[in-house]
């Protein structure tokens, strides 16, 4: 299968590989996919007090397109608000990486990953806020 140069570049030099401590209050974690389907993406965002994504890291088990989709995503979400980040569409990723039709699901998975990370962060902060209220 012929990959686009952008996919190859992200595959050869993946950006922002790694993990944050998922128990850190400023971190939201999204893990999507399944080994049975051949791809699993873990995306983590680090959010500052202003609600801006300061940093993002990923780990992906999957084909070259899946790795490239998640690598690209970490670049795109940096500096965005949670609201803006969750509006990233799979079609934008697929277009940027020139994914062939059989690999579109990789970009769908990346979109799912950022949505999952944002909602994980929001859930934890919703709960944290409530816990603070109770103890006050």
């Amino acid at each position, binding site marked *: 299968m012929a990959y686009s140069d952008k996919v190859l570049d992200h595959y050869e030099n993946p950006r922002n590989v790694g993990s944050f401590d998922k128990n850190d209050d400023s971190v939201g974690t999204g893990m999507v996919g399944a080994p049975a389907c*051949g791809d699993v993406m873990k995306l983590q965002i680090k959010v500052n007090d202003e609600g801006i994504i300061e940093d993002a890291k990923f780990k992906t*088990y999957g084909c070259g397109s899946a790795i490239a989709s998640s690598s690209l995503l970490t670049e795109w979400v940096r500096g965005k608000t949670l609201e803006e980040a969750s509006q990233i569409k799979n079609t934008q990723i697929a277009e940027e990486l020139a994914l062939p039709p059989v690999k579109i699901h990789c970009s769908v998975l990346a979109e799912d990953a950022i949505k999952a990370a944002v909602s994980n962060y929001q859930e934890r902060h919703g709960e944290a806020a409530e816990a603070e209220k109770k103890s006050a």
Partner: protein
Amino acid sequence: MSDLKLPIYLDYSSTTPVDERVAEKMAGCLTKDGLFGNPASRSHSFGWNAEKAVENARGQVAELVGADPKEIIWTSGATEADNLAIKGAAHFYQRKGKHIITVKTEHKAVLDTTRQLEREGFEVTYLGVKENGLIDMQELQDAMRDDTIVVSVMHVNNEIGVIQDIEAIGNLCRERGIVFHVDAAQSTGKVAVDLSKLPVDLMSFSAHKTYGPKGIGALFVRRKPRVRIEAQMHGGGHERGMRSGTLAPHQIVGMGEAFAIAGAEMGPELERIRMLRDRLWAGLDGMEEVYLNGDQEQRVAHNLNVSFNFVEGESLIMALRDIAVSSGSACTSASLEPSYVLRALGRNDELAHSSIRFSIGRYTTVEEVDHTVEIVRAAVAKLRELSPLWEMYQDGIDLSTVEWAAH
């Protein structure tokens, strides 16, 4: 090391280059000064000489597998031989019954053929295999019925290289008068085959897996006791009516020469290839979470099918650009399905998705094997660094207990 040519070819189970000695013989059957005649021409020496060359090759193929030359029918390859054997026998014996038995790990040339027969009204039982890729004899025996007419089991598996016990299977078939077909496309030159002793009725062969040309194969059709098949290709009545079509002397002579070389050189070649295979496995086995697929002992020396846990097959193939290998994960073919053969072994999805088939051959060198080990180790390490599954494994999480958000 300096003369190491990249990419390194380790996909001999897909196909082999034509041996130079074979190519030379083939070239002598094409042009006006060579044996270009039609072997079916009875009225002149061009035809007679071509026929002589074809019959010589038939003898060479027969000799490698312990058959009588009259039992060898030329086909376009093992796929056609499988089709001719299974459809031919099923159609001929359908008045006796319409049940066929085969195995889930067969090549598609067999599985697609039996699917077609199912559409025609035959009933097919697909046997599973044990964890080591071999069939359970008791299960086979239990599957046999009074209306079973054909059993088809491959000799050497193309993906994992395991060798089925065709002698034992054949004996079970004989007891019940069932026609036994064996796909032996991956066997010639890799494991001894002696049809003068083996209870096999039909056997398919391919030239291009054994340093012969593509586009030519053969079907062994036993004469004593005689097995009948219905022709699938009709025409001039070549090959005693079983397979019509003008014979291709250059292809046939190539297959004959390739099989003759295989017979003459198999002993030392097997020893060398086994040494290379062991060297490759020793280089990979030291890594964590690496699994050999298929039985450890009952396998050909040429094949090493390995799963690298927590690494996905297609991305691994991408990282192994300098090595020509096959991935068990059929992700590249857009089906996103892991290999049906590895699935049949009961390998979990991660392992089935992460397998690589290395197949070693006549021209593989020690330097190539050593370089392969280096490249594979580096690639697996890099991809594991990227893998959330590897991270979870390192954290002591049992992946089978995780609830995945399947998509």
